[in-house]
């Protein structure tokens, strides 16, 4: 069976990328080869924006289906079960680089009062997943992680996952900040994102692919800044 690449527009598009690279390199070196290790073109722009308007705009073209069922009783330990009614969408919304519904952080509390964070696409104040153009709200149980909030500064989670809408790789940086933090800045090759924690401290930023590096800075309410250092791909944590 012959599979000609011309049969696939995606492969033709990829061919165009190599044509562009070849032409760019040919021009830049006057027709002579160059070696791996030097950058040929700027990195593709990675757009991460914090927008609230996106939610309303994209909600027009997304329908809502049945909620995702919670796991069977007993499968989630008691300390990981948020109390019904305690949940709220707490973070600013972060646009997905490919558009569609924005991302957000839901914060609830378990019986011990610990915050329980969950992330997802946002529609009408609910978080969930989009499959086949239909939004399905995430259950309270089974999609949250409950852990102590930071006394000072912020706790970060780096979550690499394929997006349920496009299948594209996403790097989602989210977490919870203490009351002494007024903003979180994350610099990356695509620029700087500045996030303001929600009432319960939640924040979120979404990147296309895996950025080469991320550099985080906390901005405290007294105006001081605390650089947290640069984390490199694939483990963005700093030592």
């Amino acid at each position, binding site marked *: 069976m012959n599979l000609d690449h011309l049969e696939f527009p995606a492969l033709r598009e990829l061919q165009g990328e190599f044509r562009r690279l070849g032409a760019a390199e*040919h021009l830049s070196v006057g027709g002579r080869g160059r070696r791996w290790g030097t950058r040929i073109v700027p990195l593709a722009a990675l757009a991460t924006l914090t927008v609230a308007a996106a939610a309303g705009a994209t909600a027009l073209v997304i329908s809502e289906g049945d909620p995702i069922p919670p796991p069977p009783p007993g499968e989630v330990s008691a300390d990981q079960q948020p109390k019904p009614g305690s949940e709220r969408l707490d973070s600013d919304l972060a646009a997905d680089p490919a558009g569609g519904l924005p991302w957000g952080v839901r914060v609830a509390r378990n019986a011990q009062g610990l915050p329980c964070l969950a992330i997802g696409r946002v529609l009408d104040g609910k978080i969930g997943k989009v499959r086949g153009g239909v939004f399905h709200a995430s259950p309270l149980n089974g999609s949250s992680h409950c852990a102590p909030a930071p006394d000072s500064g912020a706790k970060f989670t780096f979550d690499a996952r394929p997006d349920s809408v496009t299948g594209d790789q996403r790097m989602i940086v989210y977490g919870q900040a203490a009351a002494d933090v007024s903003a979180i800045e994350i610099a990356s090759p695509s620029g700087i994102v500045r996030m303001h924690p929600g009432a319960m401290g939640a924040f979120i930023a979404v990147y296309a692919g895996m950025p080469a590096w991320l550099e985080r800075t906390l901005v405290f309410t007294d105006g001081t800044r605390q650089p947290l250092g640069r984390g490199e791909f694939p483990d963005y944590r700093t030592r």
Partner: protein
Amino acid sequence: MTDPSPAAALRESRDDARRFEDFYCAHAGPMLRWFARHVLDPELAMDLTAETFAQAFAGRTRFRGHSDGEAAAWLYRIAERQLTRTWRRGRSEQRAVRRLGIETPKLSPDEFARLHDLAELAGRRASVAQGLSRLPRAQRDAVHLRVIDELTYSEVAQQLRISEDTARARVSRGLRALARALIGPPTEEAR
């Protein structure tokens, strides 16, 4: 007169990068299908195809062969390395794609379905189910939550009440075992 063979295109691309496109055209289609058959996922196959050719473009000065067979073998060694890393990490590496600023195109629904058919993925669902059933319970549960239910590793860890590192290890081991059970080593036919 330009030598039309893929090996010549690759060899000459060391001095004229524009020739790489001819090498790409000779191998892109079979490469996409080869990955699709190995990873059972057209989208992941597209990502791996892009990364493999990006690494080939970046490392083309290291090619020392002359024949088309040598050129294909050189390319598929890169592909096999990508496959191994994908199984180990649970996701595809996109280092060269990012470094070169390549926008990996997305498959349209029609392309997805076509590739699905060509790679005979539908006919292998039974084999996948059978392969899954033969995995140890712990690995099977972890693979199911991660791949079928699309949970994050953090969520898999919560569901199974294990650490995230353990969740990653179980998924990775399970996927490797599943791939070994379903697919033999790459063959000349597939290339």
